[in-house]
């Protein structure tokens, strides 16, 4: 059933409010083992998400229920689904909230997305990566999509955006005789960022060579750790999530507007800004997933929350206007040079098995696949194994950031982030 027909059914349904998100995705995929094609795939998908809202008469409560339906469902099925959703939403009694009014004067770019051309760019880029007997591409997977998303609400929003989304799954190997290691990495982007991709894979190959000669990480107990790869994104997500209206409302975040988030700060303070567009980002949109317009917005300045962001529901609860769900963001550079931050003794971690920061508890942890141990005398040696851990909430008062920044798809963050007092469990 066509989206417009579903919209007509929703209008007549008796629901107090509704939202429909129709996502049409055309995708091409290419899988390689070394540089030989494992298989190629094509897909044509459409998913329609219907959400209905039912409010109590006194507007004390509202409930919502949602259903995803395919494009080939019959009118009878959709009618029944909407009826079920209204019943289900009536069972949910959440504090009252409303959908936003439609945004005015949105300028949606008209984009022509050529899956063939983007795919060719990626395939040719991988073919052009310099390899040696020591370092090479073990395998890679290329996912290229053209997504057209239409969001329509009962309050008058009707916005359609078309955008490219690409994902790469890469495995770089390094070997020395029988000793062989791998580094696994995912890259998100809009279209093919050829030069950035080649440069990053080249850097990964350098790290691969270093790991071949890495020794076991010593037991350093508490020490300074520098995060100089995309794993540092997890650190800044603690700040970003802490400013989310859902975290504030649920009391998961202690952040308050106008009050510093940490006391006795010895290092740099964080300034964080939401951005509508970042060159090459996979998240460049005019509106968020609820149809709210995305604007460049200062969220935190020098460790002091300025604005919150998040879904319309929790923003309504906090009486926050003009909010949206953040996609792209940037963190301003700090006051240090890379050289200053890498001055030993410090452990510079560049690859983890899976570095995580729990933005609810602040706990962070990751097994070290490769780090560089910078000694006080200036010597540097690669180490592997062991782990880093600690609670980031307790450590952010002594965090230093480089002036230099790096773009990782949708986020621009300091290239080097140094945190004191991290627990390093060795592998010796």
């Amino acid at each position, binding site marked *: 059933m066509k989206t417009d027909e579903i919209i007509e059914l929703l209008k007549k349904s008796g629901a107090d409010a509704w939202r429909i998100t129709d996502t049409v995705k055309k995708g091409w995929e290419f899988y390689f083992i070394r540089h030989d094609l494992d298989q190629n795939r094509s897909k044509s998908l459409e998913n329609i998400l219907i959400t209905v809202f039912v409010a109590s008469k006194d507007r004390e409560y509202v409930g919502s229920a949602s259903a995803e339906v395919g494009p080939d469902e019959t009118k009878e099925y959709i009618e029944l689904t909407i009826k079920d959703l209204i019943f289900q939403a009536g069972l949910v009694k959440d504090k009252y909230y409303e959908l936003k009014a439609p945004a005015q004067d949105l300028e949606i770019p008209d984009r022509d997305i050529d899956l063939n051309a983007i795919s*060719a760019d990626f395939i040719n880029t991988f073919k052009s990566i310099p390899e040696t007997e020591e370092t090479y591409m073990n395998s890679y997977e290329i996912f290229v999509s053209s997504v057209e998303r239409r969001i329509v609400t009962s309050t008058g929003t009707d916005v359609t955006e078309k955008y490219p989304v690409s994902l790469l799954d890469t495995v770089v*190997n390094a070997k020395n005789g029988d000793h062989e290691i791998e580094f696994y990495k995912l890259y998100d982007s809009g279209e093919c960022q050829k030069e950035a991709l080649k440069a990053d894979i080249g850097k990964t190959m350098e790290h691969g060579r270093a790991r071949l000669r890495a020794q076991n990480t010593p037991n350093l107990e508490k020490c300074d750790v520098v995060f100089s790869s995309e794993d540092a994104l997890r650190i800044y997500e603690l700040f970003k999530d802490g400013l989310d209206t859902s975290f504030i409302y649920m009391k998961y975040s202690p952040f308050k507007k106008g009050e510093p988030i940490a006391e006795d700060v010895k290092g740099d303070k964080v300034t964080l800004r939401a951005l509508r567009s970042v060159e090459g980002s996979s998240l460049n949109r005019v509106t968020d997933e609820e149809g709210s317009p995305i604007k460049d917005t200062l969220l935190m300045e020098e460790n002091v929350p300025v604005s919150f962001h998040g879904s319309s529901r929790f923003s309504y609860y906090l009486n926050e206007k003009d909010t949206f769900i953040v996609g792209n963001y940037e963190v301003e550079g700090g006051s240090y040079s890379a050289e200053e931050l890498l001055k030993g003794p410090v452990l510079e971690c560049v690859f983890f098995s899976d570095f995580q920061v729990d933005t609810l508890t602040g706990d962070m942890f990751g097994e070290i*696949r490769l780090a560089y141990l910078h000694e006080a005398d200036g010597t540097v040696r690669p180490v592997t194994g062991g782990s880093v851990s600690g609670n980031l909430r307790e450590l952010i008062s002594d965090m230093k950031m480089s002036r230099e920044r790096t773009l990782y798809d949708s986020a621009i963050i300091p290239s080097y982030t140094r945190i004191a007092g991290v627990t390093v469990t060795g592998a010796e």
Partner: protein
Amino acid sequence: MKTPFSEYLTQIAPSVKKAIEDLSSDHDYVSALCTDSKGLMIRVGSKAKTVSNKTMTTERGVVIRVCKNRKYSEYAVNTADWNDTAAVIKEIRDQLSMQDRLLESTETNVFETDPLDDDPCEFFGQKETGMLPEEADLKTLVNKLTAISDKGMAMNDKMIECIARAQSTHISKMFLTKNRDLRQSYVYSEGIVAAVVASDGRIKEDYRSVSGIKGPELFDEMEEILPDVVNGAAELLGAESIEPGEYDIITSPEVTGLIAHEAFGHGVEMDMFVKNRALGAEYIGKRVASDNVTMHEGALCAEDVTSYFFDDEGVMAGDVTEIENGILKTGICDALAAKRLGTVPTGNGKRENFSHKVYTRMTNTMFDSGTYSKEEMISSIKYGFLLEGMQSGMEDPKHWGIQCIIQKGREIKDGKLTGRVVSPVIMTGYVPDLLGSISMCSSDREVFGSGGCGKGHKEWVKVADGGPYLKTRGRLG
């Protein structure tokens, strides 16, 4: 009752078969996986509730796989009008031709592979269920979960949220080739209760889960786990950091399952052998663990969320003995990887959903039980920790490194639990060292199916894992 098979799939089967017939005229192998899985998800917290028909595995669509001149291609679609099969066939041919022209223009070589086997087989399997998610009494379920959340909030004054989440999925899948017609339907469900507590600026969270090849009747079991969840979360507020080091440890069945999954689940997925990404390939027939270790993998070796009749490539489910008394016997394998390696598939070819590629994936990954009681194992430890609750894991199949994020460790001193709790705990190390030092296994075992598993950081599928309590030695931080 027997889980009904999708009427939609029954209806489109003749058209899909027609497409297979047509494509077979100029392809060496053609198959179709058709899916129609309905679901139910209810999440109740004290401040926000959600009801949806979407779970991790709800889907509807068709993926056609073809092999021509030893090259494999796929076309996945949910926008097709199967009443107009000719148009669907034309679209498949057009899309794959466009990709072929691109591959030709980029001078791409093909990793050539023989056509898959297509031995004749007909199968229709329906598992028993007490209830269907699409027919569940939503009002009763929402009230039940609300009562759990409310009760949890009242159990401790440090609680800031208590979430009860229940989801149930009615799976229908049909696998067709020229010679095979396999159809299956079953229902699996899972329930999670999570508690969030806060005190003195610290926030901690704990959870427990239930899962099984059952309908929404499973959610009756959720209230029983509530006290453990709330007490467990409150306990974390007083937890200390662990002194990094190597310790004697006892892993609870949930942590045992995490080790099984990360160590010799991912480590022996044989599509990784094809890419030369797994050290396991060199260790078949060799010792990788102590004599006390026997490990199984397969949809048949436990009844939980991923215990299907056949996999997404139409290979019947299996039960593979991966490790027997410490010796690595074999890995698990999807059909395409098996063809490339000259071995047989094990029923482990899985897709995130119909629109994703098949990889070798886990189903139920289980350590076998031993002969000891948990109490005997604790009393054997001079100083160490009993590890409970899993958060996440990651493996390095090329280097056999392992990372397990564990909720908490209970201190053991002179054979007794002291009451001291450390949290969180990160266990890292070299898999053969960890498994090589397993010295005791308990006589019981449990299976857990509430989690998901990624291949790297994507391709999420349902898996289950577990086993007994294990005594071993590990590096904790």
